[in-house]
């Protein structure tokens, strides 16, 4: 029989490594899926690709699909690909350079802090973390700067602190000229429960009519991820091949996996919604009810 077509839009990040590996190995095809991958730059572009009909399913951090839903673009999150949790499974950092003289979150007041994009997970991170010390997002100077340029900017003193992720965190924390000082770890200040980092989403229509395909997709994804997690050398090789890391950088590579399953819950999303509300990224209370349709295998 003809394979079911599934067009997948993504931005390149650690979490979607299993998808790329599965595609390369032909695992999707074997499972009866004809997956077409489209890489784009940034979460909003993934949403645009899906809303425009250029893709069926997308991968991004949870903020873009939440924002999309809030603005009338009917997408639902169907699987969770990555989480963070206390104490040590942390995949985002707030870092200051030693030259800036900042030693704690309170020191960020009035300083230049880089975020990779507006309305991104990074903004949420910054807002939620500094809220701990009673600061508002407007108390710092946000500078929009893509991740790759942040290290140089820190070293040159163009920015004082930044919100970063891997592999950039790994690189800049080794950079002696910066003398990176970690101010906070994790997206949210409170991460006693796992906090959602990466999601897969699709339009309501697609979810309604292509449930089985999504489930198959999740199954292949899950299996491949398990294999990678079990085989360190395969993981490193994949990181070099698909993420373009140098072999040395790949040695430090980890998938942000906290929960074994891909299951996504409304509660997880609600935590983020509440945090966004606190950070003034939402104007009103929001319920995660319509935003989630768990399709994990």
């Amino acid at each position, binding site marked *: 029989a003809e394979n079911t077509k599934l067009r997948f*839009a993504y931005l*390149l990040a650690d979490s979607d490594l299993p998808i790329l590996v599965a595609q390369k190995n032909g695992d999707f095809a074997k499972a009866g899926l004809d997956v077409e991958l*489209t*890489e*784009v*730059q940034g979460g*909003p*572009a993934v949403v*645009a*690709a899906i*809303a*425009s*009909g*250029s*893709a069926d399913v997308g991968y991004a951090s949870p903020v873009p699909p939440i924002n999309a839903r809030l603005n009338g673009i009917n997408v639902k999150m169907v699987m969770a690909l990555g989480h963070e949790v206390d104490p040590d499974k942390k995949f985002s950092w707030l870092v200051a350079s030693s030259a800036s003289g900042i030693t704690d979150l309170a020191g960020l007041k009035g300083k230049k802090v880089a975020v990779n994009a507006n309305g991104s997970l990074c903004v949420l991170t910054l807002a939620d973390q500094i809220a701990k010390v009673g600061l508002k997002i407007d108390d710092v100077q946000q500078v929009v700067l*893509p*991740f*790759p*340029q942040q*290290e*140089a900017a820190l*070293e040159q003193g163009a920015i004082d602190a930044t919100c970063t992720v891997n*592999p*950039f965190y790994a*690189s800049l924390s080794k*950079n002696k*000229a910066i003398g990176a000082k970690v101010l906070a770890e994790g997206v949210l200040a409170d991460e006693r429960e796992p906090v959602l980092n990466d999601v897969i989403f699709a339009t309501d229509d697609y979810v309604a009519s292509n449930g089985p395909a999504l489930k198959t997709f999740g199954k292949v994804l899950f299996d491949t991820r398990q294999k990678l997690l079990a085989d360190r050398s395969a993981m490193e090789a994949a990181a070099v091949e698909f*993420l*373009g*890391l*140098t072999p040395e*950088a790949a040695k430090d590579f980890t998938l942000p996996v906290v929960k074994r399953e891909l299951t996504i819950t409304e509660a997880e999303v609600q935590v983020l919604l509440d945090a966004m509300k606190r950070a003034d990224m939402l104007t009103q209370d929001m319920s995660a009810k319509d935003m989630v349709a768990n399709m994990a295998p």
Partner: protein
Amino acid sequence: MDGFSAFALLLRFRALVSFLIIVAVWQLVAALGLAPEKYFPGIPAIVSGFLGMVANGELAAAEWRTLLRAMLGLAGASLLGVGLAILSDISPAFRRGFAPIAALIQPIPPAAVVPMAVFMLGLGPKLYAFIIILVTVWPPYFNGVAALASVSDIQIRSGQMLGLSRWQILRQIKLPAAMPEIFAGIRYASTISLIAVVVAEMLAGHDGLGFLLVRKAFAIRIPEVYALMFVCAANGLVLNAIVNAARWQLAGWHLRMTGQPA
């Protein structure tokens, strides 16, 4: 005349010479350590990054796509730009209507309309065509309008006298007379068509040089990022060579009349 032949040689290989000049300046800045080596690597590191990308074939594939898109885009945008200029020349009503539209659209940054454009056009070739044309039509259009408006009246009268129709006057007199200036516009268009392609690939692409650039940046492979920038620059030369060839065909008289080196 030893000095002369050396000069002629220099002229002949001026493209190569200028490339080497840029490389040399770069290396000088790198060697002086004006910026940390990590972010501003020397030429040897860039070359090895370049060779790496050549070896695994990703560069050739990306380069070919980008160049092809830029060439197609340039050809399309030039034809469209000149076409609009011609329309403006023959129809004052069109000119009045279109001039403000041109002025309105021209400063719109493509990055700002990409989200909307993606929705309308998807992520395929239509999107590229839209972005390239959005930024690239203007130089041929503006140069064309200005040049067509300033063709010598004696020449136009010569055509009128022969009973040529407006269209014939346009084709046989105004266009040839305006050609040198139009080509100045096309030449600038050639540079921005390349930029537009690369930026489009960066914003919403999934292949090509721009995409590769972002990808390398996110993989913190700085020498390769710079190698790609040098490739972009070299593309400028390639495209310009093509434009110049066309120019010799269509406006060679002007180059000879003003005594320019081939």
